[in-house]
C-alpha cells in the first residue's frame, strides 16, 4: 500500500515538476568571470585593498600584447591559463572532459567552430539549462580560449586512443533481439514509441553516446500544461516555467503567460517522465540491448 502511494506520489510529482531540460545537475558547476581575472603574466604581484564606502572596481592592471601581433602559440598559452582558472573543473584540464562538463574534443560544436564563431556564442550566453554559466570574457580573452581549445583538439587527434570519452564502437555490446523484446515488453517503450513512427531512422539522426543519452532521457522533450482560470477559461500550451509559486506556458503563438499557482487550476502532461520511472528498473544489460536494437533503426 505504502509502495503504491509512493508510486502515485512520484507520478504526480513527475507530472507537476517537468521542465524542458532537466539533467545537468552539477552541484559544483564552476562560475568565474574572466573580466576580473587577467591572465598569468599580470604585472601586479601584491593584493589591493580598498577602504571606502563604495564598491569601486579594483582590477589589477595588466597589459596584453596587441592582438594583431599575437603569435598563435602564445595566444593558446594565454588561453590555457584562462581555461585552467575558469573551465577546467568541469571540462577537464585538457578540455577532454572533467567533473560534470562534456569532452570538448568530441564536441560537434567545437569541430564546426571556425575562429570562435560558435564557441564565442556559448561563452557569452552560457548553457544555463545544462549548468554552464555565461562568461563575460573580453574579445581578446575569447580569442585566446578558442585558440587553446583548437590547439588541444589538434593534439588530441594525434593521440586518438588515449582520449577519455565514449566511441560509437564502445556501445556495441548489446543483443538486438533482447533489446527488441525489452522495447515491446518489460520496458514498455512501445506504449509511446514506434520503430516505424517516431523512431524511424533514429539511428541515422543520432549515434553513439548521444543516441544512448537520448534513449535514456531525451532532455529536450516538452511537456504540455492546461491552465483553467477562475473564469473557467482554459489555456493550453507548452510548459515554460513551473515552481511552487508560478506556472508559465507558451501558447500556440509563442506568447508567454504566467499565473500564481494558487489562483488557477493546472495539469501538466509529461510523457517523458516514463523514462524517469524506468531508471530504477533497468539492468545495464537492458540498456545495452535496447541500444543495440535502436541502432538498427536506420
Amino acid at each position, binding site marked *: 500500500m505504502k509502495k503504491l502511494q509512493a508510486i502515485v506520489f512520484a507520478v504526480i510529482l513527475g507530472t507537476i515538476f517537468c521542465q524542458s531540460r532537466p*539533467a545537468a545537475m552539477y552541484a559544483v558547476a564552476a562560475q568565474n568571470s574572466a573580466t576580473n581575472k587577467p591572465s598569468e603574466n599580470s604585472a601586479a604581484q*601584491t*593584493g*589591493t585593498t580598498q577602504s571606502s564606502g563604495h*564598491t569601486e572596481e579594483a582590477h589589477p592592471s595588466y597589459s596584453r600584447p596587441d592582438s594583431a601581433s599575437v603569435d598563435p602559440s602564445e595566444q593558446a598559452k594565454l588561453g590555457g591559463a584562462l581555461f*585552467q582558472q575558469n573551465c577546467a573543473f568541469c571540462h577537464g584540464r585538457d578540455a577532454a572532459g572533467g567533473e560534470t562538463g*562534456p569532452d570538448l574534443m568530441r564536441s560537434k560544436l567545437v569541430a564546426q567552430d571556425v575562429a570562435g564563431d560558435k564557441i564565442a556564442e556559448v561563452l557569452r550566453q552560457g548553457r544555463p539549462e545544462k549548468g554552464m554559466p555565461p562568461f563575460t570574457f573580453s574579445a581578446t580573452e575569447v580569442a585566446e580560449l578558442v585558440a587553446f581549445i583548437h590547439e588541444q583538439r589538434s593534439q588530441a587527434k594525434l593521440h586518438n586512443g588515449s582520449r577519455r570519452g565514449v566511441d560509437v564502437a564502445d556501445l556495441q555490446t548489446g543483443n538486438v533481439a533482447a533489446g527488441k523484446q525489452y522495447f515491446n515488453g518489460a520496458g514498455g517503450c512501445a506504449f509511446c514509441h514506434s520503430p516505424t513512427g517516431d523512431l524511424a531512422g533514429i539511428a541515422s539522426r543520432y549515434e553513439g553516446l548521444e543516441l544512448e543519452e537520448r534513449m535514456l532521457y531525451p532532455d529536450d522533450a516538452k511537456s504540455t500544461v492546461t491552465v483553467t482560470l477562475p473564469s473557467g477559461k482554459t489555456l493550453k500550451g507548452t510548459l515554460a516555467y513551473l515552481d511552487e*509559486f508560478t506556472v508559465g506556458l507558451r501558447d500556440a503563438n509563442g506568447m508567454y503567460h504566467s499565473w500564481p499557482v494558487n489562483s488557477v487550476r493546472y495539469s501538466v502532461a509529461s510523457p517523458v517522465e516514463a523514462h524517469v520511472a524506468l*531508471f*530504477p528498473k533497468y539492468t545495464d544489460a537492458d540498456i545495452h540491448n535496447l541500444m543495440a536494437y535502436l541502432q538498427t533503426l536506420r
Partner: protein
Amino acid sequence: MEMKFLKRAWFMAASVWLASVILSSALMAQGVDASMLRNPPADSWPTYHGDYSGRRHSRLTQISRANVGDLALAWAFQTGQASTLKSSPLLVNGILYFTVPENIWAVDARSGHLIWHYTNPPTKGDHIGNRGVGMYKEWLYFLIPDGHLLCLDARNGHVLWKVEVADVNKGYWTTMAPLVVGDHVIIGVSGDFDNLPGYLRAIDPETGKTQWQWDSTPPAGTPKTATGGMTWMTGTYDPKLNLIYWGTGNPTPVLNGATRPGDNLYTCSIVAVDPDTGKLAWAFQVSPHDTHDWDAVEIPVLVDGEFHGQPRKMLMQASRNGYFVVVDRTNGKDLLSVPYGPVNWSLGIDKDGHPIPNPAKEPAPDGRLIAPDEGGLTNYRSPSFDPQTGLFIVDAHPSYSLYFAKAADGNYGWAGADYGLWGNGVIEAIDYKTGEIRWSHEGGRSGDGAGVLTTDSGLTFTGDEYGNMLALDTRTGKTLWHAGTGAGMQSSPITYELDGRQYVVTGSGSVLFAWALPLHSAEKSEALKKTASH
C-alpha cells in the same frame, strides 16, 4: 603642598589614562577568541559553520513561524563579480567577511555598506569557488586558488603574511574556509586531476609556520595504493574530546580503480584527528574503493543526544555516495548507515556499517547506469540538524548517470568519463535514529540546491532550483515564505542578531542578501516574547 597636589594630579591623570587604555582595549577587542568559538554569542558567526558542531542551527527565535510571512529585505550587497558566492560569511563585531576566489569583502552587517575589499592578483589554480575565511584574534585566514594561505588584518584587509600550503604546479588548488582551533589554523586542499595525496595541515596563526600535517593517503607512486583523499571542506571540532572531524575526498585515479585495489584508506572517509598533534584517532570509511568521485567531505555534524535509548556523542553525515551515516564520535563505531535516496551501486552494508561497493557497478567501457550521479546525493552545501525535531535536513539530489572507463583512459587523474542523465532537487528531513525521510520538499529540476539553516523557532531556511529563497516549517517542510533572488543559492544561510534585530543572510549569484523583519514587526515579536516570559 604644591608637590602633593602635583602628585595627586599626576595620579589622577595616570588613572584616567589607564582607564582609557583599559576601556579602549575592551572596545578594540575586535577579535575572535577561543571562548567565542566554543560558545558563539548571538551577535556573531565566527566560523564557517557558525559554531564548532556543524549543526548550522541557531537559538534565535525573533523570526518565527507566526511572523516569517513579514520577512523582508534589510539590505543587499553587490559584489559586482561574475563569480558565484559560495562562502559562508563570518560575523565578528558587527562586520561580515565573505569571499569569492581572490576577493574578500568586509561589510557592515547592519547596513550592508562596504568597509574594505581585498583583491589578490590573479593566480594559477582552479577558481571553482571559495568557501570563506577563518578568524583568530584580529586576523583573517584566506586561501587563494594557487595553494597560498594569506593572513590579513581584519581591520583594514592588509596582508600580514603569505605562505604556500600546497603546490599548484603539482595540481593542487585551495578553496576551503580554514578552521581555527586553539592556536592552530587548520587547512585542507583540493586536486582531482592528478594522482596526489590529500592532507590536512595546521598552521601557526601568528607566524604561518607549519605545526603538523596529516596525509590521507601514501605518497604518489606507492604501488597498489590510491592517492587522493582531498580535504576541501571545513571540518568540525569537539572541544571536550579535543578531536577535529574531517571528511576526505575520493581516491585517484578517479574512475579507474584497477591500479588501487582494496579500500583505499583514508579516502572517502570521516577522520578524527588530534588538533594539537595531527595524530589520527579513528576513521570511518563511507565509500570503500570509490570509483564514482563521491568525496565524503560533506559536513560531519556533531550531535549529543539519545540513540536507541542510550545517550551518545554522535557524528552524522549525509554523504555524497547516497548514505546517511551516524557514528559514535568517541570511537568511530557505526550506529546507522542507510541510503537517503536512489543508490544502485552497493551490495548492502558490511558488519561495521560500511557500504559494500558492487564491482559490477564500476565504470566500464560500455557504460554503467549509476545512482546517484557524480555530484552525488548531496554536495558541499551545508545540511542542518534541528535538535527540537531530531531532523537532519539536507539538500538532496536524486539522480542517474552513465559511467565509462576503458584501458585507453589510462590510470592518471580522471581516467574515465561520466554523464549525468537526470536529476532532481529535494530538501529532505531525515530522522537521525532510523534514517526515515519524515518529509521531503521538492526543489525542482536540475538539482543545484542550497544550504540549510534551522532556528529554534521551528524555521528552516534554504532555497530551490529556481532562485527562490525559502522559509519552511521545520516540522512539516511546508513553505511559509519565499522570495525570488534571481539565482540559485550556492551557499549556506547564516543568522545573527544585532541591536535586537535578527538577520538571515544568504548569497545568491553574486549578491549577498540580508533579510529581517520590518522594524515594527521585530519590536512586536520582542514584546510578545517578554510577555510570554513573564
